[in-house]
């Protein structure tokens, strides 16, 4: 997946985790927890969703790297399965 596809995937998963989020208005560099009041259950759901879409497991200690859209895209790019 290229950067654009990964970005689309991250937003799609975010939309599943928090259906009320207006995906057009997501600030890609801002913490999703603060932008949309996501809690630890939501972050776990985000990790599960990213795994289901990409096959990449985000360990708990790396959660901090995927709580922004930009961060998640960078993380998935760096850990892409070859």
């Amino acid at each position: 997946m290229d950067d654009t596809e990964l970005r689309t995937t991250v937003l799609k998963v975010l939309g599943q985790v928090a259906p009320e989020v207006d995906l057009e208005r997501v600030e890609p560099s801002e913490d999703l927890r603060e932008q949309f009041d996501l809690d630890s259950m939501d972050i776990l759901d985000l990790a599960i969703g990213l795994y289901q879409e990409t096959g990449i497991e985000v360990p708990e200690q790396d959660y901090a790297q995927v709580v922004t859209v930009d961060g998640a895209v960078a993380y998935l790019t760096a850990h892409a399965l070859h």
Partner: protein
Amino acid sequence: MAEFRMPSLGADMDEGTLVSWLVGVGDHVERGQVVAEVDTEKSVIEVETFDTGTVSELLVHEGERVPVGTPLAVIAEGVGAAQPRRRAVPTRTRPGTRATTTEAAAKPATKPAAVPLVRGAARVAASPLARRHAAALGVDLATVTGTGPGGAVTTSDVETAAHPVRPALTVEPEPAPVVDEPAPVAPVVPRSGADRQASMRHAVAEAMARSKREIPHYYLAADVDMAHATRWLEAHNTSVPVTERVLVAALQLKATALALRAVPELNGHWVDGEHRPAEHVHLGVAIALRGGGLVAPAVHDADRLALPEMMAALHDLVARVRAGKVRSSEYADPTATVTNLGDQGVDVAYPVINPPQLAMVAFGRVRERPWAVDGMLAVRPVLTVTLAADHRATDGRRGATFLAALDDLLQRPNDL
């Protein structure tokens, strides 16, 4: 014969709207089966029946709003106990014309008595629902002027007739905001977000005001070393697939459930001036809705769930709350409630008990703190847990025993 009634889904609920029937006349139903969806002030809830048998009558239309305790359907016990009949739904009544308080609504906690058939009134033209309403409200149908088709007595007529005999001391709820709304077409359209939010705020306000008016709270707090629990969680979560990870909230719930079992005086309800400990631990979980509002449905038999089951139950409950798919028993029967504001950065919370429960437990944030261990200073993950308990039912000493048990359990995550 058993009557399936509008359940009370919490101390703050006076009435509900039947959104849809999931069964029809002649269908066999099992105890615990979801048979209808009801819209309360807070959300749409799947309602389960307490009886096994055959549905012989549906008494309330989809879209009708009725007080708690109103019979919704008749269930004949046993398979094939009743001849399937045509759907006996009465003349549709207009919402907004009903009485807002009835005796049934005033006593939602007690088990409703069977409503006798009013044989003497059999000659009066009236719908089955109106007859039952009349019986429930103690109204003689012969004295009621019917305004329905052919002069038939409708539920509204019964309620109008019942109005003067209402108990004088019942608290009058706010009148329904919309009075002249036309009869809704079934299935009823769910209320808008803003509408829902306003009514949820109202429901929370009622329950919390009642709590602070009636319950003499006492509060106890303790700091708990979470090093063992945190290490256990890290090890567990690295060894399992992402889908099986456990959150600290699940550990807290399980430990709380076991501590409640150890100090059963805190688990149960205060009803009619009496302390009524519960046999099971149905642990309420406070879940914030994004966009505002709060609900606290129960995880059933929380003390008996293995940790992965507890995590699955919590995950499922949060998902269903946010999708509006909570079951009636989950709202109706929590025996104590847990809240966790740690994700929001709160160190210590002082919770308000959800009446008629006896206790509420609040977990704060797990944060690294200087901590003395064996005469040495260490840095440990620590959280503060607070117990709010009803002083009518227990004293601080029992509360202290509970907190000590909870601390002890959190030191042994392997045993949870």
